[in-house]
């Protein structure tokens, strides 16, 4: 039988890496399945890998770059002995403990599991949107804004991420049109003020994108006013989609309790899921706050919850944590 690990952490955003730092310092020798590279936010390092300046993570007076913050967290966890594998869990069997996680045919067995797979960007779900993804359609302003220097582009969405993208994109684009389905934004006041002050940003209120136009690359978008029903074409070279997030929980369906929207359900005041020994932290169980710092905080909670759970079971013998136990 495969070695039974004390803790396996699935996902490597702020919650997963904070859980890794804490469980590694507790000598639980965590294994982190950090995910596989991708250009959506479902990837090693999580959503911050697609951002630039992070201004609200405490401890960095002048801010820090998202990818840099994540590589620091990873190095910090590695320093305490966390083990990393750049793979994605393809299937889980949480009928234990011990629980089983599969990477293809490979089986990984663990007494406790911390699920921190986060959330990824929602798309508009238009046929031409997927066809032109990477040819003007993007969910990553920091990756693709550069290619729209001097051009006109559009951003869809009305939250903080949409405004962050719009503001960032004004560095390159001549004009940024923000398309939002309501008459007011749900973004924070400070972001709204910055966006309203920026002369390069135009707002199309009460409007939805109904089609993306262009043969080989984006040439425009078709926008419908939801109040009047009128449709109009906006010529743009890029469309950046920031309409919200969906949790990465497909692999846990039927195994863990989740809300209809897919977010995992944890017990109030704890990170415990409905399955003994399985804990959830970060955006995968939080559609309310969704901040790097709240994700990190709940990752710390999950680590402590897992450690106490292991102790209560008598499975975690910290002095010989590196010796595999078989039964």
């Amino acid at each position, binding site marked *: 039988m495969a070695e039974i690990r004390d803790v396996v952490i699935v996902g490597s955003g702020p919650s997963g890496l904070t859980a890794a730092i804490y469980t590694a310092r507790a000598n639980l020798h965590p294994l982190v399945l950090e995910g*596989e*590279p991708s*250009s*959506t936010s479902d990837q090693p*390092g999580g959503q911050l*890998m697609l951002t630039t300046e992070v201004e609200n993570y405490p401890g960095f007076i002048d801010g820090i770059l998202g990818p840099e913050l994540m590589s620091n967290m990873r190095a910090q966890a590695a320093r305490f002995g966390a083990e990393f594998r*750049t793979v994605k869990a393809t299937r889980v069997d949480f009928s234990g403990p011990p629980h089983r996680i599969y990477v293809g045919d490979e089986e990984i067995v663990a007494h406790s599991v911390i699920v921190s797979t986060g959330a990824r960007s929602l798309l508009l779900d238009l046929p031409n949107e997927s066809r032109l*993804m990477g*040819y003007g359609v993007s969910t990553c302003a920091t990756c693709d804004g550069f290619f729209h220097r001097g051009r006109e582009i559009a951003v869809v969405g009305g939250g903080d991420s949409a405004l962050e993208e719009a503001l960032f994109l004004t560095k390159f684009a001549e004009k940024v049109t923000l398309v939002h389905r309501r008459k007011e934004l749900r973004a924070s006041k400070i972001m709204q003020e910055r966006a309203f002050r920026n002369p390069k940003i135009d707002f199309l209120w009460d409007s939805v994108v109904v089609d993306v136009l262009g043969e080989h*690359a984006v040439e425009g978008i078709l926008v419908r006013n939801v109040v009047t029903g009128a449709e109009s074409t906006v010529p743009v070279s890029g469309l950046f989609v920031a309409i919200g997030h969906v949790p990465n929980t497909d692999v846990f369906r039927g195994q863990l309790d989740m809300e209809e929207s897919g977010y995992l359900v944890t017990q109030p005041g704890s990170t415990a899921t409905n399955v003994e020994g399985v804990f959830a932290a970060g955006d995968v169980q939080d559609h309310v706050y969704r901040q790097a710092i709240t994700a990190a905080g709940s990752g710390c909670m999950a680590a402590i919850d897992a450690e106490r759970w292991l102790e209560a079971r008598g499975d975690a013998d910290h002095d010989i944590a590196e010796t595999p136990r078989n039964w």
Partner: protein
Amino acid sequence: MADNITILTDTNFNEEVQGSAEPVLVDFWAEWCGPCKMISPVLEEIGREHAGKLRIGKLNVDDAPDTARQFQVMSIPTLILFKDGEPAKRLVGARGKGQLLEELSAFL
């Protein structure tokens, strides 16, 4: 950097890629692109493991904007596989090693 990884610029692109006997997988990337950094070690591994059959070319779009424009790169990372000097396969967006190898299997 591994031996079979070539740094490509606007000036050496034709010579290195279009004049190459082996297929060249060109990685259009930039310092400020998170997903680009994530696939970098994967590409180095693939380059090592398939030495003699495939070369890896790294093209920084900040340093070589003309070539990026010539191949209509609008999103990074973009990987273009050049066979006999011609683009034969284009992959937009980062992916894991397994998926990359699968998509490149016809050329390896």
